[in-house]
């Protein structure tokens, strides 16, 4: 499948934005200025972006505790995200949610999630809305290898099949749930799980944007055409600890270094598009520079933005009460 030049440029920019956003957070978190838990998505960018490049604002996604990448890929603004992570009233959730709860329903982003396995059932509901309202939309659940063991996830695979929902279940398999390896925690295979619930299964290398784009394109088209849910298994590596502050003693010393060297989705993307003569390196450098400016501006702005007011504490518990 030929991907439009414009799409490629947008995807590159989104992946670079995620990378720089996360690397900046890694630095800023160490200063102690960022409150709460932060889980970084670095190294996994091509998954969120390759999938979301096949979606529009009319489609819905649900994310996880490691949600910044999904947010950016689905079009949530970087400034509002950064402000949220800093707990400012200008944040996308007005400082009430923080890193783990960034959501923007206007662009079909149902939220990061503090509860592992929280997303897949919600995606069944979003898919039901798309199907019932006949709006042509598809709902996509991103969830980890760890989350694939939650009852809520397995039940959702079944429900989506039983109701023939326009849903795609994207297992982001980075080999770990916290400090425990997937080889210990996941019995059988994801493929067999998909088969067990009667849905097609596609797997791909998550460091290859083109592979993800292709596989997700097929899965999403299948769901969109009313042919039922699909499982998309994306193989990934996470480059930082489970959360910021995790020393990662459970991983071999060279595991992350190797992933960075051989499976950097941004490097691979650049090589591929420049070798194919689609882009000059300098064009991509310009994107990098623009993204760097955008992230810098977002951090400066977030640090300077107003804090929530005391009245905000009581606001928005209900629509009416």
């Amino acid at each position, binding site marked *: 499948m030929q991907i439009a030049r414009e799409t490629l440029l947008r995807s590159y920019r989104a992946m670079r934005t995620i990378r720089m956003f996360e690397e900046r957070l890694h630095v800023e978190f160490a200063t102690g200025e960022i409150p*709460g838990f932060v889980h970084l998505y670095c190294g996994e960018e091509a998954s969120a972006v390759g999938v979301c490049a096949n979606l529009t604002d009319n489609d819905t996604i649900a994310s996880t505790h490691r949600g910044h990448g999904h947010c950016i890929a689905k079009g949530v603004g970087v400034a509002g995200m950064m402000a949220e992570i800093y707990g400012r009233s200008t944040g996308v959730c007005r400082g009430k949610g923080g890193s783990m709860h960034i959501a923007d329903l206007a662009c079909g982003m149902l939220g990061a999630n503090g509860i592992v396995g929280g997303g897949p059932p919600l995606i069944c509901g979003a898919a039901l809305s798309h199907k019932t309202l006949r709006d042509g939309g598809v709902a996509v659940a991103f969830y980890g290898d760890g989350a694939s063991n939650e009852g809520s996830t397995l039940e959702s695979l079944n429900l989506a099949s039983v109701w023939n929902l326009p849903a795609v279940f994207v297992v982001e398999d980075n080999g770990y749930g916290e400090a425990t*390896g997937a080889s210990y925690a996941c019995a059988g295979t994801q493929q067999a799980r998909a088969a067990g619930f009667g849905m097609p299964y596609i797997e791909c290398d998550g460091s290859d944007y083109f592979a993800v784009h292709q596989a997700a394109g097929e899965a999403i088209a299948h769901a969109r055409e009313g042919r039922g849910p699909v499982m998309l298994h994306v193989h990934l590596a996470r480059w930082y600890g489970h959360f910021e502050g995790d020393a990662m003693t459970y991983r071999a010393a060279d595991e992350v270094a190797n992933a960075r060297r051989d499976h950097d989705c941004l490097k691979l993307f650049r090589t591929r598009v420049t070798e194919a003569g689609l882009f000059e390196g300098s064009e991509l450098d310009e994107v990098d520079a623009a993204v760097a400016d955008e992230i810098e501006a977002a951090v400066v702005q977030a640090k300077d933005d107003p804090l929530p007011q005391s009245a905000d504490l009581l606001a928005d518990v209900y629509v009416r009460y």
Partner: protein
Amino acid sequence: MSKKSFRQAINEALRQEMRRDPTVILMGEDVAGGRGGSAGIKDAWGGVLGVTKGLLEEFGDTRVLDTPITEASYIGAAAGAAVTGLRPVAELMFVDFVGCCLDQIMNQAAKFRYMFGGKARTPLVIRAMFGAGFNAAAQHSQALYPLFTHIPGLKVVIPSSPYEAKGLLISAIRDDDPVIFLENKVMYDEEEDVPDEPYAIPFGEANLTREGRDVTIVAFGRMVGLANQAADRLEKKGISCTVIDPRTTSPLDRDTILECVADTGRLVIVDESSPRCNMATDIAAIVAEEAFDTLRAPIRRVVPPHTPVPFATVLETLYLPSVDRIEAAVTATMAHRVVEKV
């Protein structure tokens, strides 16, 4: 006797009970950690906050079991194992995750004994951390002890210091009923002198952390420390307080609370859980019903607002009960004057 943190006190209680009784086992997500990891090491974490560190080394992986992320099944497995001969201590990590496994606690473990006509024993302990103060936001900060207290068949423990944690956890493990043991996550580094040898603190016996004439303060967990700080300040202003730590919300030591209220005639309850149907409302109801005639002022509750826990520090600080708010409530109850009806 030596200085131990809240974390170390809990670890020591687990270790000593596991040495004493080979049927005591631990399970939970990353209670050891590292399994299946490329470094090939075990005990990488010892729990997300290191509370169970080192137990794998001593007791091995038949007694310290890492689970997949699958609360409904491992909490249920702990209940099933408890009713068939083991004494599991299952760690739920954040108490908020009870949303994923409440059935196994509420409809299964809690009800076995009664439903089965008194034939079952379910010596299960579920440990979990709770509470706001970490910017952990709405899904990782709740204080759900009233939820458990509401369920007949469960016992509910909230230790207020390292000393209390060790003695209460030992009692929890030796208890033949299901016990929910709730650790305020802000307290893990707090230290105090804790005996090295095992000791058990009985359930349902409140601890009078301070005795005074004017106002009775009932507080739970970390709030006991805040109540005592407020009492220190009030002492300087000539107001003397009794501070009660009930230790367990179920069973609840009603007698001690009623006796203290009879002495002081004034009651302030400090509870960091959501304000509707929480421990403060429960105790207020008991006192209103049983000790109405001894009250000289309306009961006051220092509680959070009826909202989820917010993320931003400014809002989270406002959300939680504080020393200032406790002091203000005590001052207000002292200022109350009974007006005679004409």
